C-alpha cells in the first residue's frame, strides 16, 4: 500500500516536470548561409567535426551537447537558435514531429566510408571495388536517394536480395541507430549502409551480421577482430586513417543547420505523457526493446549472482585455508578485483582476454560480473563465518560431528543468517551495475532506453521507464532473498507442529523420576 502511494507521488512529480511552460518565442530571421549565424547561439555535438569547424568563429555563441536529443530539447525550449549536425542525423519524419526544419545546408560535402582493421587488405580491396562499381553505374546514388529523400525512412525496408549466402560471415558494428543511415527493427538491420553491405554480401557470397557498438568500443572491437567493418556515417579523417583503413567513399554528408520550424507543430516535444508513451513505446513496437533488454538484464544478473556466489564461496575457502600460499592468492585476487573499475574489467575481459574465443558477450559479462561479485562476497562470507562463536564449533565437534559436518550443519546456517543483509545489498548493486554491459554490445535495459532515446530524441521518458523497472527489479530481488531465508525457517517450524502434546503428558515417557522444578 505504502509503495503504491510512493509510485503515484513519483509519477505526479514527473508530470509536473513535463508540463513546464515553454519559454516565449523569439522572432527569428530567415537563415541562408553561415554568415547569417553571427550573434546566434549555435549548438553542436561536443567533439564533432562541426565543433572544430565553428571554433574558429568568434562572433557566435557555440554551445556543446552530448547527444542530439539533448540539443533538440534545448532547441525546442528556445535555449538554442541553431543546431548543426550531419544532414542525416535527424530524418525528415522526425523533423516534422519535433517541429524543426533545415534552414540551409553547408557548402562542403564530407566523404564517408567504411573503416576496417588496419591490414585487412583483402576485405578492403573487394569492398572498395564493389563501392567503386556501384558509384560508376550510378546505382549507389539511387540507393542513397531512396533512403535519404524518403519522407518516412523508418518505414522503408531493404528489398529482397535473394537467399542469404552461407560463407564466412562478415561482422559489422553499427555505431548509429538512426534512419535512414542504419537502424534496426527488432533484430533486422535496415537503412542505407546495411543495404549497401547486404548487397556486398551477396556479391562476395558471405552473410552479413550486424551488432550495435558505441563508437569507442567499436574501434576496440575492430582492432581485436570482433568485428570487421564499422558503419554509421564515419568521416574519413587523417586522424582516423592512422588507426584504421578506409574503403572508397560510398556517400558524402553535408552539414545541416537545423532551426525551429515556426509553422510546424511545436507542442509535440514531450509535452504530453500520452504522446511520450506512444512515441517511445508503441511506435514500431519499441516496447520490445524494453522487454528484450529487461530479459537480458535479468539473465545476466541472475547468472552472475549464482555463479558469483559459488565463486565467492570458493575464494572464501581459499582465503580461509590453512595454507598461507592459497590464502595469499585469494587475498591478491580480492584486492585486484576490488581495485579495478567494473567497466574497465568488463572491457578487458571482452576485448583482450576473451577476444579470440567464440564466447558470446552475455557469457563474458556473466563471467566478469561473477568474478567481481565473488571478490566482494567472499570477504563477507569470511567475516560472517568467523563471527560464529568458537563454542558453537566446539559443541559440534564434541558431539562427534566431523569438521565438514560441523561446518555444514552449524557454522554455515548461522553465517548465512548473519551475512544476508550485506549480501542483499551487494546483490542489488550487482543488478544495477549490469547497466554498463552496453559497452560490450549487449542490449540490456539501459541500452534499450538509449536506443529508444536516439530514435525519439526524448531525453526523459525512456529513462523514467527504465528507472522504474530497475527499482522494481531491485525491490523484487530483495524480497526474493528474504523469502529464501524465511522459507527455510518456516519449514523448520512446520515439522514441529505435528508433535503430539498428549504424548508429552503420557506417563510412559517418564524414564526417571526427576522432579520438575
Amino acid at each position, binding site marked *: 500500500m505504502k509503495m503504491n502511494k510512493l509510485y503515484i507521488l513519483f509519477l505526479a512529480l514527473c508530470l509536473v516536470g513535463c508540463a513546464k511552460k515553454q519559454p516565449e518565442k523569439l522572432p527569428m530571421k530567415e537563415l541562408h548561409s553561415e554568415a547569417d549565424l553571427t550573434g546566434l547561439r549555435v549548438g553542436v555535438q561536443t567533439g564533432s567535426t562541426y565543433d572544430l569547424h565553428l571554433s574558429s568563429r568568434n562572433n557566435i555563441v557555440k554551445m556543446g551537447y552530448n547527444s542530439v536529443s539533448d540539443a533538440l530539447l534545448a532547441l525546442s525550449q528556445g535555449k538554442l537558435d541553431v543546431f548543426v549536425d550531419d544532414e542525416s542525423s535527424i530524418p525528415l519524419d522526425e523533423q516534422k514531429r519535433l517541429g524543426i526544419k533545415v534552414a540551409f545546408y553547408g557548402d562542403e560535402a564530407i566523404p564517408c566510408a567504411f573503416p576496417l582493421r588496419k591490414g585487412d587488405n583483402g576485405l578492403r580491396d573487394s569492398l572498395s571495388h564493389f563501392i567503386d562499381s556501384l558509384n560508376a553505374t550510378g546505382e549507389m546514388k539511387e540507393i542513397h536517394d531512396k533512403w535519404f529523400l524518403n519522407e518516412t525512412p523508418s518505414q522503408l525496408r531493404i528489398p529482397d536480395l535473394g537467399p542469404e549466402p552461407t560463407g564466412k560471415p562478415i561482422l559489422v558494428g553499427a555505431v548509429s541507430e538512426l534512419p535512414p543511415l542504419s537502424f534496426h527493427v527488432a533484430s533486422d538491420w535496415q537503412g542505407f549502409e546495411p543495404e549497401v553491405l547486404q548487397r556486398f554480401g551477396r556479391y562476395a557470397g558471405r552473410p552479413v551480421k550486424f551488432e550495435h557498438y558505441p563508437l569507442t568500443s567499436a574501434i576496440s572491437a575492430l582492432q581485436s577482430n570482433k568485428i570487421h567493418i564499422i558503419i554509421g556515417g564515419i568521416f574519413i579523417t587523417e586522424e582516423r586513417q592512422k588507426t584504421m583503413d578506409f574503403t572508397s567513399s560510398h556517400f558524402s554528408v553535408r552539414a545541416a543547420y537545423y532551426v525551429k520550424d515556426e509553422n510546424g507543430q511545436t507542442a509535440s516535444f514531450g509535452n504530453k505523457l500520452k504522446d511520450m508513451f506512444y512515441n517511445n513505446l508503441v511506435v514500431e513496437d519499441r516496447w520490445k526493446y524494453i522487454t528484450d533488454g529487461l530479459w537480458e538484464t535479468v539473465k545476466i544478473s541472475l547468472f552472475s549472482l549464482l555463479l558469483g556466489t559459488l565463486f565467492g564461496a570458493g575464494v572464501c575457502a581459499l582465503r580461509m585455508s590453512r595454507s598461507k600460499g592459497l590464502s595469499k592468492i585469494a587475498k591478491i585476487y580480492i584486492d585486484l578485483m576490488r581495485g579495478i573499475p567494473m567497466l574497465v574489467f568488463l572491457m578487458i575481459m571482452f576485448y583482450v582476454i576473451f577476444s579470440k574465443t567464440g564466447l558470446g558477450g552475455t557469457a563474458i559479462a556473466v563471467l566478469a560480473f561473477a568474478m567481481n561479485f565473488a571478490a566482494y562476497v567472499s570477504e563477507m562470507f569470511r567475516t560472517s563465518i568467523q563471527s560464529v*562463536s568458537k*563454542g*558453537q564449533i*566446539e*559443541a*559440534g*565437534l*564434541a*558431539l*562427534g*560431528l*566431523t569438521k565438514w*559436518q560441523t561446518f555444514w*550443519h*552449524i557454522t554455515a*546456517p*548461522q553465517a548465512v*543468517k548473519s551475512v544476508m543483509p550485506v549480501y542483499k545489498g551487494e546483490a542489488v548493486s550487482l543488478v544495477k551495475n549490469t547497466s554498463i554491459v552496453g559497452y560490450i554490445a549487449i542490449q540490456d535495459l539501459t541500452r534499450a532506453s538509449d536506443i529508444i532515446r536516439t530514435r525519439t530524441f526524448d531525453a526523459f521518458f525512456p529513462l523514467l521507464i527504465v528507472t522504474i523497472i530497475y527499482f522494481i527489479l531491485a525491490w523484487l530481488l530483495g524480497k526474493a532473498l528474504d523469502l529464501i531465508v524465511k522459507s527455510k525457517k518456516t519449514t*523448520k*517450524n512446520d*515439522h*514441529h507442529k505435528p*508433535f503430539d502434546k498428549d*504424548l*508429552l503428558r503420557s506417563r510412559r*515417557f*517418564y*524414564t*526417571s523420576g*526427576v*522432579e*520438575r*522444578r
Partner: protein
Amino acid sequence: MISIKHLSKTYVNPDGSQLEVLKDVSCEIHKGEVISIIGPSGNGKSTLLRTINLMTKPTSGEIFFEGENILAQDYPINKLRQRMGMVFQTFNLFEHLTVLENVTLAPMKLKGVEQAEAEKEAMTLLHKVGMDEKCNAMPADLAGGQKQRVAIARALAMHPEVILFDEPLSALDPSMVGEVLTVIRQLAKEGMTMLFVTHKLKFARDVSTRIFFMYDKGIHEDGTPQQIFENPIHSATKAFVQQIYKLPFVVEGLDFDIVEMHSQMLGFCIKYNIADKIETMQQIINLMVLLVLAEYRPLTVRISYIELYERTTIDFMIEGLETSPLQTDDFDPHLMDEVRTLAKEIIEEPTKRGYRIKVVLP
C-alpha cells in the same frame, strides 16, 4: 574405562614462548565413577578434561579408552566423541536451531536415526531435564539454567558412555544452579560416568565419588571426597579446600567512606559467587555500624566466606573492650531484634585484643 598415562601438554604461544600446563599425569577412570577435578586456576584442570575427548591434543603420553589407544594415528576421533558427551561452561547450544533440533541433530546426522524416532527420544530426554515444554523455543529465549539443561539433554541423546562437564555451573546465576544440580544428581544416581571440572567445592563434595586435586601441573592428590575435604594428605590440598576468603574493613570515625565499603563488599560477593547474600549483608552491616555500634568506633568489620561449607560470616571487632556492647542501653533494642531476624546465628565473645560479635548469615 579410561586410562591416562604420562600425559603432558605444553602450549606454544604465538610469540614462541612455551607454557607447560600438564606434566606426566597418569590416572585410571572406572565405569560409574563421578570425578570432580578441583584446584586453583591455571593448573590444567580444563586441559586435562579436554584431552580426554581430544578437544585438546596432548603433547606426549597415552590415553586408552576401553583398551584402545585413542592417540593412535588412525583412531577415529569423531567416533570416540560420539561415545563421550561434553557439556560446556557457556552452554554452546546451536543458536540457529530450536531446543528440540539441538537434541535431535547428532542422532539424526551421525546415527541415521529417523526424524520421528529421534524427536520421540529427544522429548523423553527433554522431559527428563524438565525442558520438554520449551521444545520449540530458540536458545536465545532461554535462561542460563534452562540452556544448560538442554545442553545436557543434547549430550545424552548420543547415549554416551561418559560425560565430560567443563565448569557446568560457573556461568550460572546462583538462583539457577539448583535446577542444573538436580539433573546432574539424577544422572549420578543412574550410574552415569561423569567428570567435572568445577570451582564449587560443596558441589564436588556432594556429588562426586572421587576427587582429583590438581596442583603444580598434575594430579596432586586423588581420593574420595571425605579424604580430600576432611583429611587431606598434602598441605596444598588442605590450604585449598579449607581456604577462607576474607574482606576486612576498618570503620575509623564518624566520616568513614560507607560507599567505598559497600562497593568493596559487592566486588567480594561477585568474586566468590555469593551475590545473593549481598542484600542481607548490607542490611546487617548498616544496622550494626551506623546504629548499634555507633558509639564504639573505631571498629573493624570482616566478611569471611568458607567455600567448602558455603558459610558467610560478618565479624565486628572492637579493640580494648571487655564486656559485650550489646548488653548496654545505648541503643534501641528493636534494632538488635532486627539483626537477629536477618542472621542465622549471633556469637559474642571476648578476644585477646577486645570484643568480637560474629554474625553468621543464613
